[in-house]
């Protein structure tokens, strides 16, 4: 792998072989009606409508190599879903180009649609009134999957997602987590080479999130499929994505390794210290004492056994740790990376 410069100067991680996703200067501007609230404004807008342009995606460029899992991050309204929809052929761009598996996505050719999949969290492809097994068979026909291939893929998905117990029940009777498993299976039966996943774990409990994540990782390992994934759950990103692309106000803000972003945006570590019997111990001389996180279960006051977090520069961690251990009655000490949520949040606004 080697770093590569994209049009707008951000780095990326390239792999050998042709890149299945090439996006160059992609833009999408929506024209929306604009009016104030109230009866008068409603009447006025009936006769004379005001419009304004919303630049959802502006001049975004990136390439994604074969088999990569890339996290596509940004706050709500950043342009993530719009980009995914353009790449899956649902939206026409207003500028730029995209090439996915040697196709222009919005031409929506059947052989292109047969080689990709789009999973939008909570938006179901499955019919609610019948068991998922019936929808799977329908997908087999729609995607022209041979019986042998279907059986092989289904067995594999069943092994990874434990589907057998749930696919005979009508979809409306499934829990959200069970339904999401079936949605993923339905979306993958045709063995797509490129997966566009928009919030695939949204609304799921922690256990279900973990299962979906490990499934995606294993699926990627086995099939070599390329995955572009949006998620607001950083656990998804850290578990799956070595590389992330950050987009904000429709513009590409960062494209590179997650670890590099952490180093660049937040070049510090957090030393979590639990002190023994100590009334006047002051940690502020070692670094910035940041608020004690709720999960530590203490208010951070000295002498009560609670944990405090001290933020120090990354290159001073060893020295500061040694000083704390020498100076204070430490009962427990750990060194942590800054929370990825903070890093990403800073990156959005940088």
């Amino acid at each position, binding site marked *: 792998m080697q770093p590569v410069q994209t049009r707008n100067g951000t780095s990326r991680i390239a792999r050998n072989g042709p890149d299945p996703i090439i996006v160059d200067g992609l833009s999408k501007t*929506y*024209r929306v009606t604009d009016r104030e609230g109230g009866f008068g404004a409603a009447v006025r807008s009936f006769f004379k409508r005001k419009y304004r342009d919303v630049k*959802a995606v502006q001049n975004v460029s990136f390439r994604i190599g074969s088999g990569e899992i890339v996290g596509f991050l940004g706050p709500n309204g950043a342009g993530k879903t*719009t980009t995914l*929809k353009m790449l*899956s*052929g*649902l*939206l*026409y761009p207003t500028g730029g180009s995209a090439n996915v598996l040697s196709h222009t996505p*919005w031409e*929506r050719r*059947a*052989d*292109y*649609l*047969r080689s*990709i*999949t*789009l999973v*939008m969290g909570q*938006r*179901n*492809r499955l*019919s609610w*009134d*019948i068991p998922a097994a*019936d*929808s799977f*068979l*329908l997908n*087999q*026909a*729609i*995607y022209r999957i041979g019986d042998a291939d279907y059986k092989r893929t289904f067995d594999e998905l069943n092994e990874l997602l434990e589907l057998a117990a749930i696919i005979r029940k009508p979809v409306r009777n499934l829990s959200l987590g069970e339904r999401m498993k079936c949605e993923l299976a339905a979306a993958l039966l045709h063995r797509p080479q490129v997966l566009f996943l928009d919030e695939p774990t949204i609304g799921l409990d922690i256990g279900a999130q973990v299962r979906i994540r490990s499934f995606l990782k294993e699926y990627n390992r086995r099939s070599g499929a390329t995955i572009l994934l949006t998620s607001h759950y950083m656990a998804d990103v850290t578990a799956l994505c070595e590389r992330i692309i950050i987009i904000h106000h429709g513009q590409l803000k960062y494209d590179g390794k997650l670890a590099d972003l952490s180093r660049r945006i937040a070049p510090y570590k957090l030393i979590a210290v639990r002190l023994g019997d100590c009334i006047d111990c002051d940690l502020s001389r070692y670094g910035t004492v940041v608020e004690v996180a709720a999960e530590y279960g203490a208010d951070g006051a000295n002498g009560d056994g609670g944990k405090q977090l001290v933020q120090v520069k990354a290159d001073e961690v060893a020295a500061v740790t040694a000083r704390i251990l020498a100076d204070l009655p430490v009962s427990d000490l750990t060194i942590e990376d800054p929370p990825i949520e903070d890093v990403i949040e800073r990156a959005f606004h940088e």
Partner: protein
Amino acid sequence: MLAIYKHLWQVNWAEQWQYRANLIMYLFYWLVSPIVYLAVWTTVATAQGSVNGLTAQDFVAYYMVLLIVNIATSEITIHILGYRIMDGTLSNLLVLPVHPVLTQVLVNNLAFKALQLIALAPIWAVLYVLFQPVLTITLVNVLLAIPALALGFLFSFFIGATITFIAFWTTRVWAIAEFYFAVFQLFAGQFVPLSLLPPVLHNIAEALPFRLVLYFPVQLILGKLTVQESMLNLGLLAVWCVAGYALFSVVWRGGVKKFSAVGA
């Protein structure tokens, strides 16, 4: 492609059974107006002896056959697709490598129709006993009625779908669909047999294709047409189907482009 339709049929057939109450309500919707017209016109014809040469028996036979033709050629595309276009859930169908309207929506229409025809059978039998229509139905007419009903449905489907596609541009599609349906009913022979329309309206009805969907199959089944007349109307209906399909295709392509422009 046949495998797709087979599985779509299984899925849609199973789904329709989940919505039995919905089915009954729609059935009443299709039944009420012909039965009311039947009652009104037979009363008038009985009082006057005949209306423009049509006796009470003629009206009974006309509306009894119309009940079947009506359901056989009806379509509900706007109810299947209208909201999906407006709320964006059409996206789920657009990512599939098949034409969603010519597969999913078409088969949904057919499954719904099949179930409605089954539900109509006992009701029709009761009406038969009540009104005692005199029907002289021949094998030739039945054989000719099958393609007439199939083509009639196909034409209705293409036009109904095209009107539904207006939802890509405006949320007022329901009002437009209602207006279309009223025009259709008038010129197809739903309100009155077309021979009773004033000359101006009758001429318009002759020029429009809607009479081929209801009036023509009814007259065909009742044995009012010669084989030549039936074949001519069948050919005309086939041409209208081709024109309907062309319109359907053009508007669909434009609609999807619009859908894709404003945000699916």
